[in-house]
């Protein structure tokens, strides 16, 4: 593993102020047949007020990164290296007490399926109040008022505060989950596939709401999804993950218009477009890698249509090939590659 190469991704220029920096993060799952390095030397930062998108297929490690930032990974998953710095403090070094204060106050999370992340035997109001009272020394009455305000903010009538999750529709439940995540107004929200289980029309409403809230409160978002078209719409920068590593990262427009990594290109060519000519798509042949024995060299080489000389033996480092556009591919980072 060439984790010796520090695959750091620096900031977008201009008024970029980093909020959180993930530095060479490594997470392993201890499995029967050996350990799986689910996240292997991932580095990136998220600026204040920035939306960073993390894309990749199942098993690429994107949700594991989210859980590592929150430190909610359970054995057999263990963080084996790296740093997660938020305003200078390393989350991975925090004591139990510190981490309890950090969670929700500084980083909150919206989980994949709103259906399952709400407690079915508690009203949505109580679940918001719970989050507030765990962190703020205020009266229950005050917390209740705040909870009502949060529901209003996400577009749920305040008198639904005493509703149980099953009395709400899927879209309302997902908005309630966002209200809980917003309750303490943390500077960073991690959203792990927040709209995957929803219908497109509802998804559109939720995304519009998220964008509106971000403009209002200025929090940052780490947005995780496998839906590239969605990600291009909502994020400022996008990182593409494959086999536990970031293989490309760039501002969304740039990545969409000029994808450099063959995997990114394959992903872009995998979803049928609504407009333009109806042309045949090919997808990406093969299957995602088995991380117990990952392919040598570049992990994408067995599926790559452009592989050549060094691909099966040398691991390509993530290199900035254009301003703010990083790619880990020999095609773009070696002289032989450029000639291909």
């Amino acid at each position, binding site marked *: 593993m060439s984790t010796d190469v520090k695959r750091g991704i620096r900031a977008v220029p201009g008024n970029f102020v980093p909020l959180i920096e993930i530095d060479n993060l490594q997470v392993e799952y201890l499995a029967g047949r050996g350990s799986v390095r689910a996240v292997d030397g991932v580095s990136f930062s998220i600026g204040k007020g920035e939306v960073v998108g993390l894309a990749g297929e199942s098993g690429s490690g994107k949700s594991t990164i989210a859980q590592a930032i929150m430190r909610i990974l359970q054995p057999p998953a263990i963080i084996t290296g790296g740093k997660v710095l938020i305003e200078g403090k390393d989350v991975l070094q925090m004591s139990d007490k510190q981490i309890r204060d950090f969670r929700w106050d500084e980083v909150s999370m919206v989980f994949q399926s709103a259906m399952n992340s709400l407690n079915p035997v508690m009203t949505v109001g109580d679940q918001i109040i719970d989050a507030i009272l765990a962190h703020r020394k205020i009266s229950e009455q005050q917390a209740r008022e705040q909870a009502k305000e949060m529901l209003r903010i996400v577009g749920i009538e305040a008198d639904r505060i005493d509703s149980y999750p099953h009395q709400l529709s899927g879209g309302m439940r997902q908005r309630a989950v966002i209200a809980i995540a917003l309750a303490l107004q943390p500077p960073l929200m991690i959203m792990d596939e927040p709209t995957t289980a929803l219908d497109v029309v509802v998804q559109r409403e939720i995304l519009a709401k998220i964008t509106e809230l971000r403009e209002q409160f200025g929090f940052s978002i780490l947005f995780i999804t496998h839906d590239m078209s969605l990600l291009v719409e909502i994020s400022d920068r996008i990182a593409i993950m494959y086999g536990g590593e970031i293989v490309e990262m760039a501002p969304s427009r740039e990545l969409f218009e000029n994808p450099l990594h063959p995997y990114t290109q394959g992903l872009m060519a995998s*979803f049928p477009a609504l407009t333009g000519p109806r042309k045949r798509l090919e997808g990406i042949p093969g*299957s995602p890698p088995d991380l117990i024995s990952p392919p040598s060299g570049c992990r994408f080489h067995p599926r790559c249509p452009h592989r050549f000389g060094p691909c099966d033996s040398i691991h390509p480092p993530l290199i900035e090939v254009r301003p703010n556009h990083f790619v880990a591919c020999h095609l773009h980072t070696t002289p032989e590659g450029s000639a291909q």
Partner: protein
Amino acid sequence: MSEQRDLVLDVQHLTKHFPMGGMRDARKVHAVEDVTFSIPRTEIVTLVGESGSGKSTTARLISRLIEPTSGEVIYNGTDVLKSQPRGASLDYRGDVQMVFQDPFGSLNPAHTIGYHIERPLLIHKKVSGRKELRERVLDLLNTVGLGPAEETAEKFPYELSGGQRQRVGFARALSVEPKVILADEPVSMLDVSIRVGVLNLMKRLADDSGLSFLYITHDIASARYISDHTNVMYAGRMVEGAPSDELVHEPAHPYTRLLLSAVPNPHAGLRTQETVARGEIPSLIDPPPGCPFAARCPHVMPVCREVMPNAVTIAPNHWVRCHLYGDGGVSPLPTAANSVG
């Protein structure tokens, strides 16, 4: 809507009301209401709609996993509900096969892939003898792109990826030499890079093997990609049907327009300013008369809340159920320009 074309399946006024379940509760859930459409031979026809729109129930009614309240399912010119009132015959079940959404739940974890494909071959008596059985299994695995077949046949479901499992679903459906495959969200649980492969497989089977497909999805872009004709369902009703490309470019029904405007489109940027219809899909329990979309429709008129509009043909093979069109309607909406980029 149905003309002289060669229809393999013709569904007329299909309706399914589920009882609420209580002893004294006479209320009914109107899951599918007066659904009419057809599948021409070797074509792929899509039913698109959101969850709860009745699209999966429609497929289950056609496959006769559940029995309809009323309506006709005409297969090769015969109404199978009338001719086989006690449930579908083995022949019909063989001819009309289903592929399910969840490739993880639809295979038995205790049996090999080979076993899953052998079962229908034996039940439908498609082979004579072990040797032919083995050959057919390997042949089918190759057809769906699961080579090397000898190896795949010995594997268990957990050893395959989602996309490969869905291909097993197709191999199993194909084993009984069906004429029609009802594919219920066959790619929605698969990774993006794998989806296109499964869609292409369906397209190839329609083009080369003369199969017809009912493709059920909530993804209107994939409907445009593989299907010839797309029907839009909303709250148990069919609201619009058109050639797939035309539906995307010239949607007529306000609901179709809403659906299209909600699809993420990287070319357009996030369109938060757009007037999105608010509100939820109406309750299907004893719904009020009128158009089910009336409560959310930006163009709603008094008549919409009282009378269900009839289907009006507005172009060849393009019909819509909306009071804005046809008799008593106001002039049609301005065309496509305001829908998709």
